[in-house]
């Protein structure tokens, strides 16, 4: 059997806000298998974002272990973490985080620049990625010329372009109207189903969460429940 994409064991995270210690994560264990699509739910302050940051190698846990595809991520320095993010992780943010005054093509190829991919190859891969999210014709468009849903699809194309092991989506539909939200969600589901891309997303919208196959509930920095969704909700594209 393949190693889990994510294998987290007893992870804690403690922040120091001046004198106060904030226990954001209090011993979380979690595994995500290749090809899975999973949602994390929980009230605000439950540690969702912190967990996503740890999974996304943006932050190191205070204690506990984290293996990504069998590789120990604990104890890596900033540059090594950047390297993991570059090769294995695609991020999708609630606020899209596209670069302003930069067209879709260049936004999508941003990760490739840091990966040192030659320009010609960047071009073919950007075409493929934008094609996969249904925006092949919008290469030269600036973010301001795109709708919210289209911007998020550009962001997904950017997350896809390095053929990552996992896509981490933090409230991907949070800033979208329900129609574009459904489209974006359908896109993620399709990518998961057709290309076998592992997806972990955070959402507080039960409808979004219920369209995945597994939901992990967090509260107060701990896993408070886990459910397998037997019949995921279909979202129309």
């Amino acid at each position, binding site marked *: 059997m393949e190693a889990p994409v994510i294998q987290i064991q007893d992870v804690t995270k403690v922040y120091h806000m001046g004198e106060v210690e904030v226990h954001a994560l209090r011993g979380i264990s979690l595994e995500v298998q290749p090809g899975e699509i999973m949602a994390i739910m929980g009230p605000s302050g439950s540690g969702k974002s912190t967990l996503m940051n740890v999974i*996304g190698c943006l932050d190191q846990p205070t204690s506990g272990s984290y293996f990504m595809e069998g590789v120990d991520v604990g104890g890596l320095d900033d540059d090594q973490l950047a*390297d993991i993010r570059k090769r294995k992780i695609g991020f999708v943010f609630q606020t899209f*985080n596209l670069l302003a*005054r930069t067209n879709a093509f260049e936004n999508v190829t941003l990760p490739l620049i*840091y990966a040192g991919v030659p320009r010609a190859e960047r071009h073919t891969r950007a075409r493929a990625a934008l094609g996969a999210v249904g925006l092949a014709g919008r290469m030269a468009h600036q973010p301001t010329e795109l709708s919210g849903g289209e911007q998020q699809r550009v962001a997904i194309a950017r997350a896809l372009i390095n053929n990552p092991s996992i896509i981490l989506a933090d409230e991907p539909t949070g800033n979208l109207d329900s129609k574009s939200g459904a489209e974006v969600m359908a896109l993620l589901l399709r990518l998961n189903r057709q290309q076998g891309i592992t997806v972990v997303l955070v959402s507080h919208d039960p409808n979004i969460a219920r369209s995945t196959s597994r939901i992990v509930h967090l509260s107060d920095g701990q896993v408070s429940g886990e459910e397998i969704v037997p019949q995921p909700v279909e979202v129309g594209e």
Partner: protein
Amino acid sequence: MLEATRLAWRALMANKLRAGLTMLGIIIGVGAVITLMSVGDGVQAYITDQFRSIGANLLIVFPGSVQDPMAGMASLISDKAALLTVGDAEALADRARVPDLVAVAPQLTRFGRVSVGRDETLTQVSGVTPEFMQVRTWYPVVGEFIGTQDMEGRSRVVVLGQTVVKDLFADNPYPLGETVKINNIAFRVVGVMEEKGGATAFSDQDDMVFVPLTTAQTRLFPSRTLAGERGVSTIMGQAVSDERIDAVKEQISTVLRERHDIAFRDEDDFSIISQAGLIDVFGQIMDVITIFLGSIAAVSLVVGGIGIMNIMLVSVTERTREIGLRKAVGARRRDILQQFLIEAVALAILGGVVGTGVGAAGAATVTYLIGEFEAKLSADAVLLATTVSALVGLASGLYPAWRAARLNPIDALRYE
């Protein structure tokens, strides 16, 4: 690297006005440095040229210590008793003792009032011998120069320089046979010198009149040394060739030390200056002035650097989310550092290039306004200015870039 440069260019283009204003500091600094250096070089080249026109084989012996050649030159205009004498000149003219000197021309020069009727001009009156022509390779354009008979007869004859002719005989360029008064003594004009050129604030070789040395010593500026000899203010000599200049200096020195009774350990009481020596001295003076002015101009480069640092810090803050995103998609510290450093350096170099243009225009303007010399844009100055502005950019970009590189991606992404 190429990508980072493209990126920097786009970032600057995104905010043209701001980039332009930021560059202004560097532009002004580099422009000022380039203009000043060009003008300095131009003046130096001009003066060097002026000295060169004196003649390469020329040596001038001044009274006064060699340690302080400028003080020796001061005796040219002061009435201090001359330490050089006609006897010295005669000794130097002795081919047996100074074999490498082909001609010797003693000179007694003082300022004097030269007048025709009511017109009067203050000019240099130089008592010379016929050898002067050969030594200076300077000849009359009409009439004749001071001759041997004039010397023996202490004649009251005068040869005028072009500037004096223009001052006193506005309608008559060849006033042969006319009478002029020098310090109220009447002299007959026997010749007019050809134009030597080079009217500057420093010297006008044509603003001069020549009389026989003997006449100057007895009738115009009578004075004697303690030993009772007739003094001269300088002795010019023409070496046999410019390779023999150093040998000639040695020979002159030996003769004069012996004549002046200078003990073995003591310093010379005269200085021997060759054209090369003069050029050196003025070159040093000009260098000091150029460096001094240049460092004042360089202050504005520093101010420009502070401007760049300031705007880069603002830029880093404004683009915090962008930095966060770049880090999230895999940019290392080094990538971010490089991006902002290149942006700062690009600002500075761009400023440097524009500043060089401004400096060139400044130099051209000075050349146009003064007209006497050409303020040349030297490759050195351009190279220096560009290098310095790149370094200024690097220095002022370092801290902002480091701040950007060190940003935590999580905080940066959350930044509003």
